[in-house]
């Protein structure tokens, strides 16, 4: 971090604040009639791995975009390292993002670059480090995710699990204070899933960073996270440690943990009664 190019704004981020991220009454929607998030409160303490869980379309990824400043809340505040994200100008936002890593759902690796160059990319773009040092750092990151032998492969030559590990190595390339993972387990086989899960935990502890994991994989999450928020229809409807989640009698949490097809999250999309539907066609 000491070698970051001097392009950041003068905004001071408090990397020592107790909470890495705070969402205070955050409301967001693409149009006013259908809010994606409604008055969400969330606290992500520094050094912890926190999962945000919920069904598809519940607003989980939107929370990550709000934390990263890609979206701005309609109401409420998103505070990262003591700074309100909405108050940052573009330079301030880029200053924040230099200290945040993000793993996208399918890796988002640059397809025209090799694995090595993908991980070196943020170092080359954002630091003044010499090539020799970048080379050593990239090999260290690759070694950490077990892919040092794949350095010269192109992303198209990687399996889904390997691509996710490379993306993880790229996300932690500059030793960020906060790492955000968007569906890191999606589409992975059980072995890769376990590997990625353990890497998230190990990297977080080794780097002393904070991790926010958006996922709907309850079993892997219970193994690696410190705290879980459950989000449904734009609201936090349950939260707790893995032990509290396992013991929970909350109907939504039970449906999620037990994988029940019907419950608080209904099997059927809202529609008029089936009989009325048939009658309408018959008439």
């Amino acid at each position, binding site marked *: 971090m000491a070698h970051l190019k001097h392009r950041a704004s003068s905004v001071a981020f408090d990397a020592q604040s107790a909470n890495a991220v705070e969402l205070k009454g955050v409301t967001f929607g693409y149009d006013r009639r259908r809010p994606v998030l409604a008055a969400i409160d969330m606290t992500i303490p520094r050094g912890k791995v926190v999962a945000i869980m919920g069904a598809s379309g519940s607003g989980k990824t939107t929370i990550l975009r709000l934390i*990263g400043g*890609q979206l701005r809340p309609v109401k409420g505040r998103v505070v990262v390292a003591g700074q309100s994200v909405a108050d940052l100008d573009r330079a301030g936002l*880029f*200053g924040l*993002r*230099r200290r*945040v890593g*993000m793993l*996208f*759902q*399918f890796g*988002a*690796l*640059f*397809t025209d670059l090799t694995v090595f160059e993908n991980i070196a*990319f*943020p170092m080359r*773009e*954002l630091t003044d480090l010499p090539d020799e040092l970048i080379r050593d750092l990239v090999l260290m990151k690759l070694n950490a995710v077990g892919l040092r032998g794949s350095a010269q492969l192109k992303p198209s030559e990687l399996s889904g699990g390997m691509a996710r590990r490379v993306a993880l190595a790229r996300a932690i390339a500059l030793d960020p204070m906060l790492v955000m993972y968007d569906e890191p387990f999606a589409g992975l086989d059980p072995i890769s899933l376990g590997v990625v899960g353990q890497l998230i935990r190990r990297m977080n502890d080794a780097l002393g960073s904070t991790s926010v994991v958006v996922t709907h994989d309850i079993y892997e999450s219970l193994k690696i996270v410190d705290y879980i928020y459950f989000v449904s229809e734009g609201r936090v409807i349950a939260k707790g440690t893995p032990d509290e989640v396992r013991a929970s009698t909350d109907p939504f949490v039970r449906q999620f943990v037990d994988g029940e097809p019907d419950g608080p999250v209904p099997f059927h999309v809202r529609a008029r009664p089936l009989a009325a539907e048939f009658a309408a066609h018959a008439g």
Partner: protein
Amino acid sequence: MPADALGRGVRRLGAGTINAVVRIGYAARFFVAILTHSPQSILRVGLTTREIYFAGVLSLVIILLSGLFVGMVLALQGFDVLEKYGAGDSLGVFVALSLVRELGPVVAGLLFASRAGSAITAEIGLMKTTDQLAAMEMMAVDPLSRIVAPRFWGGVISMPLLAALFSVVGVFFENIVGVRLIGADSGTFWGNMRAGVGFWPDITNGIIKSCVFGVAVCLIAVFEGYTAKPTAEGVATATTRTVVIGSLAILALDFVLTVFMFRGMGAK
């Protein structure tokens, strides 16, 4: 019912017009954003050089082959018409002027829009679809500086060079057909061409045209890619739009530029 249909038609026309105006305004702002982000990318020469390779060098085959055939066809057609009026000696100057002033920039521009423009749009569109642009933004790297501006300038620099090569190859193969096959006199061919084609205004006007076409095609290509819907269908639509809008823009701009240049050459 007819009134309803008419109303719907008017609404659709109005919405389409508003959408088009909004998009043109957005494209203008996008162009300004590219210019303001250009110094950072131009200073990193490697980025633009790489795009010159992809847009320019990789388009060479299609441009040179097209120049070859266009030059040969022009020689055959031109000689046939000119000979009827006893002006067969003017073959060289006729074909050279056609190529340098008009066909070189226009045909090379159309081919460039199809080959390089569509590739630029598809590449940027796919980068958007696969979250590569979002990943770059989240790394505090501005895609306008790192991705869009180098591709824009790579294309803008390539276009006049490709048009010039198109004309050179066309003239060379025109000479082969006219002199070697048809039997026109070689000395007269080259002599009349040297006397009839001037650097100013003929070649200069061709260069100006190809530069303008390069800016237009490259702006359309990067804009369509950057604003493509992040789906397979969205990228396909954007790529098609680049070729269609780019080609029409070249033809329309060619007419406008020719009017001004024709006036500049003393026509009334």
